[in-house]
């Protein structure tokens, strides 16, 4: 690779130009850019922030990040597609992750995935056609003592069976229909951020 990132230096950050669309979410990205003084090695951190703010990385977003960090777009695209965390397609309203780490696998997590795939006619890693549910698998969430583990809209649910998993997802989708907005699943602890 001909382009190299430079090591962190503690220089003064330059101000970011406001995004012409006026979307306030861009200011979140700008804040991260400033925090890392527009260093090119902060690309992954910036993409994390961008995905958190927008839900997925659109072409526009990648172009914006590339421009701000003065990196070739191919570089940014390469990084965004290399890592599993980044997604370039919009996600469903609800998000169900089935852990397929070794401990969950030997406790038959594959059956849970199969049951969910069949019930919602969706393959793992994709979103249902109506955009209600994204189903994905993960390689170990580090809760092996509670295998098999399911993460439904950010809540870790321990010791699931195919039947209980189907019921949980059904309820979660129902809840949202009644209240209009997605609710965190009950009886579980929020996976991301504890406060």
């Amino acid at each position: 690779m001909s382009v190299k990132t430079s090591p962190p230096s503690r220089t003064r950050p330059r101000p970011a130009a406001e995004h012409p669309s006026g979307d306030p979410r861009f200011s979140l990205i700008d804040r991260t850019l400033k925090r890392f003084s527009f260093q090119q090695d902060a690309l992954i951190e910036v993409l994390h922030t961008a995905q958190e703010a927008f839900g997925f990385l659109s072409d526009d977003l990648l172009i914006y990040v590339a421009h701000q960090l003065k990196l070739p777009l191919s570089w940014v695209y390469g990084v965004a597609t290399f890592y599993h965390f980044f997604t370039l397609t919009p996600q469903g309203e609800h998000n169900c992750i089935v852990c397929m780490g070794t401990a969950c696998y030997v406790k038959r997590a594959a059956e849970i995935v199969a049951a969910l795939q069949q019930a919602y006619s969706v393959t793992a890693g994709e979103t249902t056609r109506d955009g209600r549910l994204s189903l994905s698998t993960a390689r170990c969430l580090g809760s092996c003592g509670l295998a098999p583990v399911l993460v439904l809209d950010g809540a870790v649910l321990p010791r699931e069976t195919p039947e209980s998993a189907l019921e949980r997802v059904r309820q979660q989708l129902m809840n949202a229909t009644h209240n209009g907005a997605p609710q965190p699943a009950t009886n579980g602890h929020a996976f991301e951020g504890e406060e």
Partner: protein
Amino acid sequence: MNRADLETMAQREVQRQQTFRCRILCCASTPCLSSGGSAVHDAIKDAIKEGGFDADFQAVATGCMGPCSRGPMITVQTSGGEDVIYEHVTPEASRQIVAHHAAASPAPVEYILPGDIPFFAKQKKVVLANSGFIDPERLEDYVARGGYTALGYALREMTPETVCREIIDSGLRGRGGAGYPTGLKWDMVRKARGDRKYVVANGDEGDPGAYMDRTLMESDPHRLLEGMAIAGYAVGADQGFLYVRGEYPIAAKRLERAIRAAERRGLLGSRVLDSNFNFRVDVRIGAGAFVCGEETALMASIMGMRGQPVPRPPYPAQSGLWEKPTLINNVETLGSIAPIIQHGAAWFAEIGTAKSKGTKIFALAGKVDTTGLIEVPMGITLREIVYDIGGGIPDGLDFKAAQTGGPSGGCIPAAHLDTPMDYESLRALGSIMGSGGLIIMDERSCMVDVAKFFMEFCMDESCGKCVPCRVGTVQMHHLLERITTGSATAQDLETLQDLCVMVKETSLCGLGQSAPNPVLSTIHYFLEEYMAHIRDHQCLAGVCTLDQAPITELALV
């Protein structure tokens, strides 16, 4: 802050803790929280408030206590009395527990977990000594248990050279899996020329089934920071990077908070503990790539690039981050540093076996009665871990195999249950120590299916840079798929074995070189199972479907 201030801080905190008659430690690590731990913690705080015991009782949210499958866990420390451990605590039970310790009403015995059961008795906590006893969010808690005294001692009484010497003498070896002597690596970076040097803590624990590093980062973040600072002093680095796996948001948050707290008190940053040593630490969050556990790929990821490995040499010790000498150690390795400096190399070298010193943390999971996180002296037998610490196999089934080292390791069959767990013995059996994932399997696990599972993992995670790994893993997975669906012939098994050897010998980095290990080791120990699939169309464990006919036979019909 200087060493005297540190001591004052420790004394003040110890005195504060002694004013409480009873300290209720609630496990607040991910497994216990998923089982309802936060409701228990709230109930305890409410019960203390309602009873008016604020002056006597203290509720502390701590890190992991170990037996994760028995959560939510609570430990009650009483002044003058022995610690009492409670398991499967519910909010109602926690009220009973508070009432019991307040007024000596009868104890809720059904929730008590005896402290002398083999699960605890057979363990030796060195790295996890504070885990489960301190609030990971409070610097004072760590300092009260002797935290940062090792750093103070090293900065004041030792030269970088003697620190390296001490680590070499301790016999500490890398806990990431390969087992390279840590002290020698430090000495190499110390001697390397460079205007800047870096220290990197590898917390990219991608191994499915392993969560030792996450627990250490979540339960005792300052222990890791202290280890990094000592490493920085020993090798002459002033900048550290902590690479945390993207799946561990809580760990990243706690580490960031810990760094800020330590910087505020002058334990990190400029002029650490009033010495001339400066050391900054930055957290970098991974984005989900197993290959980033490999050191050169990890460095590429820190520099904001795709996590693809580069050939070694040059080793990171000579040319690492931004072509400067870089020390990369696993999180658990760095967690062992402070105790070694504090108690001396000789103390550490007494634990373990002749070539593998100290303790090792394992994430015990799978088909055992008590799963969780254990720290044992090196050289303990697998049988002791499975039957004493783990409490045996549930449902009266038989032990079939233990899988160590995840997708880079292998299986240990029942015949080798008495193998001591150390680097050399495991390697002799065709497995590796790995980062510490230990999955126990019973008769209902099909070994071919397990091999296929790991191959699928490696196939997904191959970074695509070198051909043997990129293409080889796909082909090996394809062959294993044929065996498990019943369409394989005897020829396929031979091809699979040839391919394993080829990928192992020609891949660029550790991922590809070790990807065939699970297959080779299951073929070695469980050949009859492979043959049963191919010859008899039978899966002895009843896992595989085997609903297809062999392709060559189809051609004949």
